[in-house]
């Protein structure tokens, strides 16, 4: 299955490189768009020294982890983001006939290689933040950082799948979709702890962004020593369960209008 995915990926790379100048220009402009994500934090820390006790590089690390997870999903699993188009043009019906899992085919159906610029950007910002942060490195912290990054990929993957299941109900992908993914991404750029109670509750218990880059971050930068904080990214996997179940449920109920 993995080999099949890479075959798809290779095809997409070939397609992208057919229009070289367009690809390069899109890549560069995507780099500049990505810069705006970090620009707000960098500009504001020019005027302020901290946000609720967090320093510039702590916030940048927090932000880069979120963008990394989002960008990985955008780059390699673009098909799930555009799921409504698959339903509308009937491509989903074809997928149902093939001997592979539907979700797998959807994931492999489209990649957006330009978005890899955002992955690279996130890695760069992460590296800058880590160099400037003065962290007492240990084996445990390396593992924790990896867990946070994986949790970030998982949570956006879950959200995209959830939004795709939502398309079964509405057919048209509504803007609510963007509110959940883009809005969540925007808020989770900052340590969730800086927000007031209501928002903190939503991002802890409903969409668990706090377990991706807030509670683990506290442990990572040495603000908390409780071992539970170390394991908190694992809770994100629980969030994945209802997302996958809802997709299954939607697929079962799906009625093609055919033609």
């Amino acid at each position: 299955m993995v080999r099949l995915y890479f075959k798809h990926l290779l095809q997409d790379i070939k397609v992208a490189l057919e229009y070289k100048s367009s690809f390069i220009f899109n890549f560069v402009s995507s780099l500049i768009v990505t810069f705006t994500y970090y620009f707000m934090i960098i500009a504001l820390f020019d005027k302020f020294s901290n946000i609720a006790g967090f320093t510039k590089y702590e916030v940048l690390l927090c932000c880069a982890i979120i963008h990394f997870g989002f960008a990985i999903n955008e780059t390699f699993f673009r098909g799930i983001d555009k799921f409504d188009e698959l339903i509308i043009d009937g491509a989903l019906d074809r997928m149902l006939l093939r001997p592979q899992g539907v979700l797998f085919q959807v994931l492999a159906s489209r990649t957006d290689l330009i978005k890899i610029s955002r992955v690279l950007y996130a890695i760069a910002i992460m590296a800058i933040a880590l160099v400037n942060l003065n962290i007492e490195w240990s084996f445990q912290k390396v593992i924790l950082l990896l867990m946070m990054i994986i949790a970030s990929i998982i949570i956006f993957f879950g959200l995209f799948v959830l939004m795709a299941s939502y398309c079964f109900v509405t057919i048209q992908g509504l803007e609510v979709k963007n509110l959940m993914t883009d809005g969540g991404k925007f808020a989770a750029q900052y340590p969730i702890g800086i927000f007031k109670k209501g928002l903190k509750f939503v991002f802890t218990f409903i969409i668990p962004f706090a377990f991706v880059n807030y509670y683990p971050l506290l442990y990572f930068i040495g603000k908390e020593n409780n071992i539970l904080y170390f394991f908190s990214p694992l809770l994100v996997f629980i969030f994945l369960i209802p997302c996958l179940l809802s997709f299954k449920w939607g697929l079962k109920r799906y009625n093609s209008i055919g033609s």
Partner: protein
Amino acid sequence: MKAYFNYFKLMLITHFQYRSAAIAGIFTQVFFGFVYILVYTAFYESNTAVNTPLDWAGLATYIWLGQAFFSLIYPMYIDHELLNTIKNGNVAYELIRPQNLFFKYYFKTIAKKLSHVLLRFPAVIMLGFALPASYGLSLPHSLLNFVIFVAALISSLLLCSAYSIIAHLIAFYSIDARGITTFFGVVADIFMGGVVPLPFFPKVLKTIAYALPFRYIADFPFRVYSNDITILEGLKLLGYSSIWIIIFILIGYIISKTIAKKVVVLGG
């Protein structure tokens, strides 16, 4: 002239139909408004000793106005209809019409932006006023400030639409236009104060931003409202922005003329 006015009217009527999109848009704007307010609150509360470049009431007002008039000032809007004319060859029809390409899409864009914003802004503004004073929108500083604010918004609409069409026309020179149009959009978005209000910029960038035309899209209207830009200064800026509008329209017109001369339509 009458033809352009009809394009304008048609687009206005068409886009008034998309009411459910407007409701979703309002939710998005309100959510982003809240997150912005909360982030800035956290910054202001944990740095009480710092001399802030914008006072809190002015900043909260800036944020809510920015969300309410989002579809008017948003410069990264991509008009797929216009871009697709290049790929599917319909641009040939566009060029043989007696109307000018630039002005046709200019009026269409203005109408589109206007209809979007008219459906969205009342709800966001009302919510802004309903919120407790420490989070919400304040009243305009004076009646005169409000008058200049409205005039500045109108010039913002004219300027932003012209700029966006220029970006699309330049994209005519390539096959995949997405990169070029987003590039133009991002530059405007940063330098108009769409990401961070201009007073928060580091010194050098601030000087650059004040010299560029983009500040008239967002920075000027939203700050004159709360008298952060004074009335006298505001009148001066209003003059500058009118000059920029004329320059942008001229550039757009000239580009559309050169395109008409240079276009190569690949048969079919």
